[in-house]
C-alpha cells in the first residue's frame, strides 16, 4: 500500500513537472545576450540551441585553456566549472 501511494505521488510530480516551468542552469540564460536565440538574427556568433552537447563542452574547455582563439569567450569561459559547462551544454542541446 505504501508503495502504491509513493508511486502515485511520483506520478503526480512527474505530470506536474511536465506542465510546470523549466529553469535554465546557472549562467545559461545570459548566453543569448550574444548567441541569438532566434534563427532570424544574422550574426557571426552561433546559435547554441540544438548544438551537440559534447561540442559545446569542448568549445568551452578550449576557450578556457586558450587553445581556441577568442575575443570574449576566453574571458567568459573561465567563470564556469566543468559541471556548470556540462549543464549549460545539455540545456542548449535539448532546445530547438
Amino acid at each position, binding site marked *: 500500500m505504501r508503495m502504491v501511494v509513493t508511486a502515485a505521488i511520483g506520478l503526480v510530480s512527474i505530470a506536474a513537472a511536465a506542465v510546470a516551468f523549466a529553469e535554465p542552469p546557472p549562467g545559461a540564460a545570459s548566453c543569448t545576450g550574444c548567441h541569438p536565440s532566434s534563427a532570424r538574427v544574422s550574426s557571426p556568433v552561433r546559435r547554441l540551441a540544438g548544438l551537440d552537447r559534447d561540442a559545446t563542452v569542448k568549445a568551452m574547455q578550449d576557450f578556457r585553456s586558450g587553445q581556441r582563439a577568442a*575575443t570574449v569567450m576566453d574571458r567568459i569561459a573561465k567563470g564556469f566549472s566543468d559541471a556548470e559547462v556540462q549543464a549549460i551544454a545539455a540545456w542548449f542541446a535539448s532546445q530547438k
Partner: protein
Amino acid sequence: MITSRRGFLKTGLAVSTALLPWPALAQGAGPRVVVVGGGFAGASCARALRETDARLAVTLVEPNATFTACPFSNAVIVGLRELAAQQFTYERVAADGITISRTMATGVDPQAKTVALSDGARLAYDRLVLAPGIDIRWGALPGYDEAAASSMPHAWKAGEQTLLLRRQLEAMDDGGLVVISAPANPFRCPPGPYERASLIAYYLKTKKPKSKLIVLDAKDSFSKQRLFQTAWTELYPGLLEWVPLSKGGAVTSVEPATRTFVTDFGRHEARVANVIPPQKAGRIAELAGVADRTGWCPIDPVTFESKLQPGIHVIGDAAIAGAMPKSAFAANSQAKTCAAAVAQLLHGATPSAPKLINTCYSLVAPDYGISVAGVYQPSNGQLADVPGAGGVSPQEAPRATRAAEAVLAEAWFRTITTEVFG
C-alpha cells in the same frame, strides 16, 4: 519550452505544493506579475516570465509606444547611424500574451500589493518587478536643471536629446570647442562617456579637424581606460584631452546661457556642451520605497528582490548589482535570472544561486571595437565577480581584432534587441 532534466528534477520538488492552489488554470490565469518599465530589463523580464511559465498573468507598464535604445546611440550623435535603428515597439512582446498597459506607474502600495497608474487604475500583483532605468538628478550639479538640458544636452536617455546633441555638433564651425563632462560613479553605462568622446573625436577628425574635445571627469579612472587612452593616442592625438579629477576635471557648476563648465581650476566655454549628469534610479523606485539613500536599489543577489520591500524585485540600471555594471547586457541577464526566481517563488520553491554574465562593447572608431566582460555570482549578499574570469580586450592586439570586435558589437545589438523586442 523544453524542460531540461535538471529543471525537471528541481521543479518536481516544488510541484506538490504548487499544484494545489491553482489546478488546471488557463493560460495567464495564474499568479499576477506586474513589470514596470519596458526597456532592456523590463521587456526581457516580462517575456522571460511568460516563457518560463505560461500560466503567469504578466502586465508590462510602459507609457511609451516606442522604446529608444541607448547602446549605439553615440553613433547616432555623430551621424554614423539613424535614430530609427535604435527604436523598437512592443507588438511582439504583446504577442507573447503579455498585457501592455500604456500608462505611467505613479505609486506602489507594498502592503495592498497594488500599483497605481497614471490613468487612475490600480493593478494588483502577487510579485512586482521594477525596471525603471535611470532618472537625472536635476540640480545635483548646480545650474543643471531640465531647462539647461536644451542648451547643454545630456543625451543619456536616447531620443530627442540624442538628436539635439547631433544637431549642435553639425551646426558647429570647424575650430569649435566641444566639452563633455562625466559624472562620478555609479551611472548608466560606465564606458559610455568615453565611447562618446571617441566617436565625437572621430567626427571632428574627419569633418572638423581644427576643433578640440575636452572631457572633464569627476573620476581619476574609468572603464576600459588603458584601451581607450591607447586608442586616443593612436587615432586622435592633440584632438581629445581627458582631464581627470586630480587635474581639476570635476565640474562644480554649469552656466547654460554661455554653455560654460566651471571647475575649481577654471572655466571652459564650449561651443557644444554635453553634460552627462549625476543619476539615480527611476522615480517609481523612490515612490515604492525600494531606493536607499544613494538613490539606487539594494537587492538580493539571488532573486533581485528588494532588500527594503518584500515582494518587489528591482532589475537593470536602477538596481545595486554589486560588480555588475549598469549595461543593457546586464539588464537582460538580470531580467532572465529574476524571471526564473519569481516563477520559483510563486511556486513556493527556493531559487538556487544564479550565475550572470555581462559583455559590453565600445566603439573607439567605426571599425575599432573594444570590450569588457564579466561573470558574476552571489557572494556575501552581493553580486561579485567570479575570480579569474572576465576582463577587457587585450591591450596589445592587431587592428583586425579591433575590427572584429566592432563587427561583434553590432551583431550583439541585433541579437539582444531581437530577443527583447523582436
